[in-house]
């Protein structure tokens, strides 16, 4: 996959930025060019937030994207915002724990993940984002699951190790979902 881009969106605090960074790190470790770009509303906490990750074999031009190839959406307003802008045939990963609405576009590959439920079942209610990341990687394959797992391992060290392990488990549950 030469060029790929993905937008990850949800409420501030749902951990979208973090999974974007993990993806970017994994891609970098695989020797690819990569950019990660955040976007926030005026709120310091709450509100909606998103990030865009671009991966390519060539140096990357625009780090921001109008019609992304893939989207991970974790709340309703983000679905409203990004469903319309996704590229034709794009991949849409939806957190059905928080989003009851149906997807209208027929041309998209839609992956439905009850991420919060899975994470809660796994005993790590905060790791819904990891579940989403897992589902996305499973369906998109822009990077290998192993690269993400490595990125998780090196990102959560020291006091955060236990947290990293929980994230790893959640990620794998997502992969398998």
């Amino acid at each position, binding site marked *: 996959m030469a060029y790929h881009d993905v937008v990850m969106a949800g*409420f501030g605090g749902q951990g979208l930025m973090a999974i974007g960074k993990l993806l970017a790190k994994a891609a970098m470790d695989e020797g690819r060019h990569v950019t990660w770009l955040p976007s926030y509303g005026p709120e310091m906490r*709450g509100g909606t937030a998103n990030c865009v990750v671009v991966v390519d074999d060539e140096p990357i031009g625009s780090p921001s994207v109008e019609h992304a190839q893939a989207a991970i959406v974790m*709340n309703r307003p983000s679905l409203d915002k990004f469903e319309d802008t996704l590229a034709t045939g794009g991949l849409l990963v939806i957190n059905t724990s*928080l989003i009851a609405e149906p997807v209208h576009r027929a041309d998209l590959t839609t992956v439905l993940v009850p991420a919060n439920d899975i994470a809660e079942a796994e005993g790590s209610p905060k790791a819904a984002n990891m579940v989403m990341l897992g589902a996305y990687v499973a369906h998109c394959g822009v990077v290998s699951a192993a690269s993400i797992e490595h990125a998780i391992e090196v990102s959560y060290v020291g006091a955060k190790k236990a947290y990293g392990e929980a994230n790893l488990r959640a990620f794998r549950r997502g992969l398998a979902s």
Partner: protein
Amino acid sequence: MNHIDIDRERCKSCGLCIDVCNKHLLEFSKDLNSHGYHPVELRNPEKCSACSLCGIVCPEGGVQVYKEIRDKTR
């Protein structure tokens, strides 16, 4: 009956009202509002003293408190 009116869409689940209510009448709802918060709900209105403390601490101006007026002649 005394009761309070919580603006579900304004509530940000900060919990300050829950903490201040010394009758422990307030709880988070299971549902999310459109901003992604679990708004607070009044559980046992009959116990509410209409003390207004919940309204005074609410940063969103999201609580209104109603006091029952008992007929004094009774």
